[in-house]
C-alpha cells in the first residue's frame, strides 16, 4: 500500500500542482527552485527550516500585489486529495497564499493526515474551540465561467508544494 506521502504526491499531480520532495538538508535548494521572484512569504516557525532573504516576510500591500510567488507554511495537509489547509493568521498566511500568482506551500511530512475523516479530527477543535479559520485548498484557482476551463482566476494559477520528508523515515 502506498504511503501517505506518495498518495499526497499523486493527488497533488492529479490536481495540477507541482510537488518537490526534499529533506531538511536540501530544503533551501528545493525552495529556491520552487520560488519565482519577486516573492513574499510568511516565516515558517520551524527551527530547522527558514526562508531566504529574497522572500519578503513582512510585505506591504504593494509588495503583495507585485509578488510572483507567496511562500507559506500550512496548518496540515490531506494526503487523499492533495489538499493544503491554509490558516487565517495575524502573520497573513491567507493573503500571502492568495494574492501572488504562484503559491509555494511548505509541508512537513508529519503534517500529513490521510483523509477527510482525519482532517475533520483536526478541524473540529480548531474551529469549534479555538474559533480559528482554515481554507482547505486543492490545486490552483479555476473557472469554467468564460467557456473553457481556465486556471488562475482570483487566486493563484500555480501551486507548488515542497514536502519535507521526516528524518525518521529516511534513516
Amino acid at each position, binding site marked *: 500500500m502506498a504511503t501517505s506521502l506518495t498518495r499526497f504526491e499523486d493527488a497533488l499531480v492529479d490536481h495540477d500542482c507541482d510537488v518537490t520532495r526534499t529533506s531538511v538538508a536540501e530544503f533551501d535548494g528545493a525552495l529556491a527552485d520552487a520560488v519565482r521572484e519577486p516573492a513574499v512569504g510568511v516565516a515558517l516557525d520551524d527551527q530547522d527550516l527558514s526562508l531566504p532573504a529574497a522572500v519578503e516576510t513582512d510585505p506591504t500591500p504593494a509588495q503583495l*500585489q507585485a509578488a510572483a510567488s507567496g511562500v507559506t507554511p500550512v496548518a496540515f495537509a490531506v494526503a487523499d486529495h492533495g*489538499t493544503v489547509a491554509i490558516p487565517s493568521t*495575524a502573520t497573513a498566511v491567507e493573503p500571502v497564499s492568495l494574492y501572488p500568482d504562484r503559491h509555494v506551500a511548505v509541508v512537513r511530512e508529519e503534517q500529513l493526515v490521510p483523509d477527510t475523516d482525519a482532517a475533520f479530527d483536526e478541524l473540529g477543535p480548531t474551529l469549534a474551540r479555538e*474559533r480559528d479559520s482554515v481554507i482547505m485548498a486543492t490545486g490552483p484557482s479555476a473557472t469554467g465561467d468564460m467557456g473553457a476551463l*481556465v486556471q488562475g482566476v482570483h487566486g493563484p494559477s500555480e501551486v507548488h508544494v515542497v514536502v519535507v520528508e521526516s528524518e525518521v523515515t529516511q534513516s
Partner: protein
Amino acid sequence: MSRSDDRQAKAAHIRHLLSTESETIHENTGHMNSERYRAIEGFDYDALRDEARAIKEDAIARLPELIEQVKASVEENGGTVYVADDAADANRYVEDVMADRDAETLVKSKSMTTEELDLNDHLGEAGYDVFETDLGEFVIQVAEEAPSHIVGPGLHKSSEEIADLFNAHFDPDEDLATAQDLTRFARDYLGERIREADVGMTGANFVVAESGTIALVTNEGNARKCAVTPDTHVAVAGVEKILPTVADLQPFSQIIAKAATGQDVPQYFSLLTPPVDSPTLDFDEPDVPITEQSGGGAEGDGDGDSGGSDARDFHLVLVDNGRFAMREDDELRETLYCIRCGACANSCSNFQHVGGHAFGGETYTGGIATGWEAGVHGLDSAGEFNDLCTGCTRCVDACPVNIDIPWINTVVRDRLNRDEAPSEFDFLVEGLTPDEEPGGLDPQKRLFGNVDTLAKLGSATAPVSNWIARTRPARLLVERVAGVDPRRDLPAFRRDTLRKWAADRDTATPTDAGREVVLYPDLYTNYVQVERGKAAVRVLEALGCAVRVPDIPASGRAPLSQGMVSTARERAEAVSEALTPHLDAGRDVVVVEPSDAALFRREYERLLSDEEFDRIAGNSYEILEYVYGLLENGADADALAAGEGQSVSYHSHCQQRTMDLAVYTEAVLSDREFDVRTSDQECCGMAGSFGYKSQYYELSVSVGAELADQFADAERVVASGTSCMEQLDDLLGPTRHPVELLDPAAE
C-alpha cells in the same frame, strides 16, 4: 390572455431559447452531468447522502434553537447576527451597515440568496457601487440578465458571446477573444474593485451553530478575497443553511462538489470563523507593511481564543423570507434541505435543452426551483415553469440530500390547479370527466389527467373514434381547448383490448404452475400497446407461470402527472382494493408499463396507507425484472426466443432507471444472445402527456432528437415505456418493447 394564447406565448419563448441558448446550456449541463456520474462511480454516494439528509432533517427540526446558538457563537467571536424577516428587512440592514461604515463600494462573491433579495438593485438605488466578482455573476451583471443556473449563472453564454459583450462594454485596448483572455481581463478588472472596496460580501453554503463558522465552496478564490481584503465582511444566508456542529460539515464537504460539478473536492472549501485573524489589506497605504496597518492583527489576540482582529467588522444576515413558513409546510419542508448544487438541473433532459431562462422562476432554476419559488416568491412564480418538470425522476438519483423533487413539483402543480379561475370551456369537460378536481382546472390538464376515461370510450368505439379523432375539425377542437399539438400522432385505441384477448383464450390455468401471476392491464398495454401485453403473457407462461389479466382500474399515473393528487389518490385506493384478493391468494403482480411499476413502488407511498403501500410495493415487479427473477430461480431460458447475436438498441424508461430496474432488461436480453446497447439519455422527452402539449411539443422533439441521434444507425430499437415508444415511433419508425423480442410466438 386566454389559455390558448398563453400556450402560444410559452411555445414562442421556448422556441426562442431552443434557437439561442440551448446549445451552450446543453454542452455545459451535459458536461457537469456526466462529470457527476464519473465522480460518484466507485464512491458510496448513497451512504453519504443518507448521512447528509439526516443532518439536514435534524437541523431544520431544531432551527429556532440553532439560530439562537449561532447568534451566541458569532457574538462571542466579535461579530453581529441579524435575522431578517423578508427581503426588504435584509436589504435595509445591509444598507445600514454600508452607511455605518461610511462605505461607497461593495464587492460580492456568488450568492443566490442575495439574488432572491434583489440586493444589488436595492443598494444601487441607494447610491452604492456593487460589483459581482464571481466570473459567471460578473458576466450576468454586465449583460443585465438573470442567472440561468444555480451554480453557473452565466452558463448559457459561450466564450464568443462573452467576448462580444466585454468588447462592447469595456472597449479594451485589444479585443478579447479566448476564455483565457476573458478570465485575465475579469481578474484584473475585478481585482482592482476588490482592492478598492469598502465592504466584502459573501454568501454561505453552511453556517455552523456551535462555532459561528461559515463554509464557502468556491473555485475562483474571489470569496476568499472578498472576505479577507476589506475590513468589513457581510455574509448573507438563508436560515436553512445552519448545521449544528463542525463535524456535520464532513459529509457535505465530500458530496457537494461531486454533486455540483463532478469535482472530487472544490478548489477552496473555506471555513471562516469571522472576524478572522488575517490582517485587512489597505491598498491605499501601499507601503505600510500589512501586519502594521491599522487593520492589522499582529498584536491583536495571540491567545487563540474567540479571536479575530479588532479592526474587523463582521455581520451575518440570516434570511427568513418565507423559510419558516416552508418549515411548517409538510410538503415544501424538504426544499429547505437543498444545498443548491444544481444536480437536479444538470440531470434534467428538459433543463439541458432550455436552461433556467425557461425552467426557472424569479430567482431559482431547475427542478428544486419549484419548491424555492413557491416558498419565497409565491405560487405564481412557481407556476411560470412548474410544468417543465415531467416527473421523470432522474433528479431523484442525482440529489445529494435525497429530496423528492418530482413530488414537490406535483404538489405545487396541485396547488396551482386549485388556484385556477374557471375557464370558458369548463362546461365541455366537467361533465365528461370523473375526477375529484375543482371546476377551474386547465382543460389541458383535465384531458390528460382523465386519459383512462378517454381510452375506455375510444376503445369501445374504435376504430371510428380514432378516425374521428384524426379529422381536421376534431384536431382543431382538441388543439384549441386542450392544447394537443396537431403535429403529434394521437394514439390509436384498440377495440380488441388485452383483457378481451386474454379472456377469449382457452388456455387452461396449468395446475402445476410455479407461480401465479397477475399481469396488470395498465392503460397503455390494455388499450394501445396490446401486442407487448400479449408477448408478456406468453413469455410468463413459457417460463411456467399461470397468468391472469383481471379487471383492475387505471393506476392514477395520468392524473398524478397533471398535479391532480386527489384523483390520483382515489385511483390508487381503487387499485389497492382490486388487487387485494390477488395478493391474499399469494399472486405476484407484474407490470409492463414502467411508469406504473414505478408508481406502485414509489409514489403510492404518498397516496396510500403504509400497510397498503408495503403490500403492493413488495409484491409488484416490472416485467423484465420478473423474468430475470424466474430465470435466476431455474426457469428454462430456452423457452424464450433467442437473439442469435442480433444488435438491439435499448432506451430504458426514466423512472425505471431511477428504480435501478433497467439492468434486468439488459441482463435478460444479453442472456438471450441479443447484442444490447443502452442509451445514456436521461429521458426521451415525451414523458406521458408532455410531448402532446402544444406549448412543449418543440422542446419534447428537441430532447427526443438527441436520443434519435444516438440510435441513428440502430438496426432495431426497443424501449420499455409507452411514452418512449411513441417518441421513438415518431422520430425513428416502429419501436417494440423488449419483452416482444423474447416472445416464443414471435416470428
